[in-house]
C-alpha cells in the first residue's frame, strides 16, 4: 500500500482490565449504542476483540423505520440527531446479526428499548438464551420519540418499575442508560440501583435544537434532537462524578470522548468504564487509539492497572463542591 494506513502499537504489558459489576472487561473502552451499528459494520476496520465491549443499536420488540429524513445536523464540536430509533428489532438482531458476529471476542451489550414495561421484559426474555449477549443496557433515555422509553427515564418511579421488572426476567448483567435531561440525575441512578441494576451508564444525548435562519425552519424534521460529541463532555464528566458519589453500583461514563485523555477524565471522576459514541463517526479507529493511549498512561504513571485510577479525583477540603 502506498497510502499510510493508521497503525496502533500493542497495548503491551499495561493492565487495562476493569470490572463492571460481574462483567470482566479486558479494557474499559466500549462503543456506545447508536454509533456502532450491530458491530458488524466495524469488522472491516478492526477486530472487535480489541474492545472492552460494544453496545448495539437500540433494539425494540418490532423493527422500527425511524424518523423522517432530516435526521442530523452538525453543530459546534458536536452534532444533533433525531434518528428515531431505526432498528431491525430484537428478532431481526437474533436472526440476522448475532450469527454473523459469531464469537467476536468481546462483550456484546444489547441496548434495548420498549414502549411498555412488558415490551422491555419480552425483549429481555428473547435475548436471555443467547450467551453471545453479555448483558443488557436499558435505554430509558432516548429524547427523540415519545415511545422511546423517555417517559421511563423522566419519572423515578417509572424508572424503578421498569428496571425491577427486567431484573426479574434476566440473569444477564443489567445496565441502565440515563438521560441527562433531568433536574437531578442521582435520583434516577438511585432508583436503578434499588431496583437491582448492575450498572448505570450515562449520559445519553442532551436535547437541543438548530434552526435554518433562511427558511426559519428547524434543521431536524423532529424539530429537536439529541446533542452529542465533544461539546457535551464537560457536562457529562460532571454528571458522572455526581452519580458515582451517589450510588455504589458501577458507573459507565459516556459523553464526547474522542481521546484517551477524555476517557481518563471519566475514570478519575468515578466511571468504571467508558463508551465512545460520536467520535466513531468521524474516526472509526478512535476506540483503538483511546485504548493505546490508556496503556501509555498506565506505563508513564507506573500504574499497576487502570482500575486503580477509578474514582481517584482529589478534591481539597473546603473546596467548592456541588451537592
Amino acid at each position, binding site marked *: 500500500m502506498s*497510502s499510510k494506513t493508521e497503525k496502533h502499537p500493542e497495548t503491551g504489558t499495561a493492565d487495562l482490565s476493569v470490572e463492571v459489576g460481574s462483567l470482566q472487561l479486558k479494557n474499559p473502552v466500549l462503543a456506545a449504542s447508536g454509533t456502532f*451499528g450491530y458491530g458488524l*459494520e466495524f469488522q472491516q*476496520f478492526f477486530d472487535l476483540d480489541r474492545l472492552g465491549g460494544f453496545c448495539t443499536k437500540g433494539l425494540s420488540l418490532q423493527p422500527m423505520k425511524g424518523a423522517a429524513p432530516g435526521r*442530523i445536523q*452538525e*453543530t459546534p*464540536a458536536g452534532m444533533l440527531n433525531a434518528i428515531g430509533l*431505526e432498528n431491525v428489532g430484537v428478532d431481526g438482531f437474533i436472526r440476522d446479526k448475532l450469527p454473523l458476529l459469531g464469537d467476536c471476542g468481546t462483550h456484546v451489550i444489547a441496548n434495548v428499548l420498549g414502549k411498555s414495561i412488558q415490551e422491555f421484559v419480552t425483549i429481555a426474555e428473547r435475548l436471555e438464551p443467547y450467551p453471545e449477549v453479555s448483558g443488557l443496557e436499558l435505554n430509558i433515555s432516548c429524547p427523540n420519540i415519545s415511545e422511546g422509553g423517555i417517559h421511563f427515564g423522566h419519572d423515578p418511579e417509572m424508572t424503578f418499575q421498569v428496571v425491577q421488572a427486567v431484573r426479574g426476567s434476566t440473569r444477564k448483567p443489567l445496565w441502565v442508560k440515563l438521560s441527562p435531561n433531568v433536574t437531578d440525575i442521582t435520583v434516577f441512578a438511585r432508583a436503578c440501583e434499588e431496583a437491582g441494576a448492575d450498572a448505570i451508564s450515562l449520559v445519553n444525548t442532551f436535547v437541543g435544537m438548530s434552526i*435554518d435562519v433562511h427558511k426559519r425552519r428547524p434543521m431536524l424534521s423532529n424539530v429537536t434532537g439529541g446533542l452529542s460529541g465533544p461539546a457535551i463532555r464537560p457536562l457529562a464528566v460532571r454528571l458522572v462524578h455526581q452519580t458515582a458519589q451517589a450510588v455504589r453500583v458501577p458507573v459507565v461514563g459516556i459523553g464526547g470522548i474522542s481521546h484517551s485523555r477524555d476517557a481518563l477524565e471519566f475514570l478519575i471522576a468515578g466511571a468504571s468504564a467508558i463508551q465512545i459514541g460520536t467520535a466513531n463517526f468521524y474516526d472509526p479507529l478512535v476506540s483503538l487509539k483511546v485504548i493505546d493511549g490508556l496503556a501509555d498512561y498506565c506505563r508513564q504513571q507506573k500504574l499497576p492497572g487502570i482500575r486503580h485510577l477509578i474514582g481517584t479525583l482529589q478534591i481539597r477540603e473546603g473546596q467548592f463542591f456541588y451537592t
Partner: protein
Amino acid sequence: MSWIVQAPVARAESFPGRNVLLSVEASDIAASTRPGQFVMAALQQHSSIPSPLLKRALAVYAIETEEGAPSRINLLLKVIGEGTRQLAQARPGDHLALLGPLGNGFQWEASGGKSHLIVAGGIGIASVLLLAQQLRNEGQDVHLIYGARSGRDLVGLEDFQKLDMDVITTTEDGSQGMHGLVTDGLQQLWSRIDPGTTTLYVCGPNPMMQAVSRLAAERSVSCQISVEVKMACGFGVCLGCSVKTRDSYRLACTHGPVFDAGRFVWEESQASFETVRAP
C-alpha cells in the same frame, strides 16, 4: 470493503466557480472504486477534535494510475461551507483523512445495443466521469448533457471530450453551448431516444434531478439519480442520511447514493439534502 487512510495530496488545482480538484495518493481506494462511489474526506488535523467535526462526502471523480496500477484518486469539489473550504486549501504534502470507497455506484447493462445518457449539472459532474469512462471502455454508446451557469463553470469538460463521445453543453448565460438549462439540452435529444433501450444517469442540483426524473417517468425511461445528503459516518451506522423511496426510508450512504428515480420520493427526502454547512 472500505479503507481508512491518511492520504498525501499530490496535486491541487483550482478552477473558476470555487471548484477544486485534489489528486491524492490512495492506491487501495483507487483500486477498488466503482463508478458512482464516494469517500468521506477531511483535511487531516492534529487535534483529536477536528473542526468541523464530521468528514464530508465527496464523489471519486477520476482514478490515476502509475505504471498501470491505480494509485491516486481525484476529488472534484465545490466550496460550499467550512468543510469544503478547508479541503480546498489542501496543498501538496498535506494529508486527507479518507474513508472509502463507500456506497453503491451506478448500475448499467453491459450488453450492446443500449444507449446511455448522462445528465450532469454543475459540480454533479464529479460523480459521472468514471461511469462515462467505463461505458466507453466497454464500447458503449454514451451521450453527456452538461449544464452550468456559464462556460467557465463547465469544469472537467475536456475529460469527457477525450472519451470520443457525444457531448452537449448548456449554460444559463449562453456563454457556451446551448443557452438554457440542462433540461433544454435534454429536450433536444429527447425525440430521438428509444425509451426501451436508453438509461439516464443524473447528478446535479435537486431541482434539475427532479425535472429530469419527471421527463424520464413520462416516457418510462430508466433513470438513476445520484443524491447528495448530509452524512455523519458514511458507512451505515449513524443512520442520519435517510431518504424516502417508495419502498421505505433508505440510507444514502449504504443503499445509495444512486437511486432509481422512479422510486424516489423527493418531497419527503428534502430535509436530508440541506448542504452540510459550517456549524
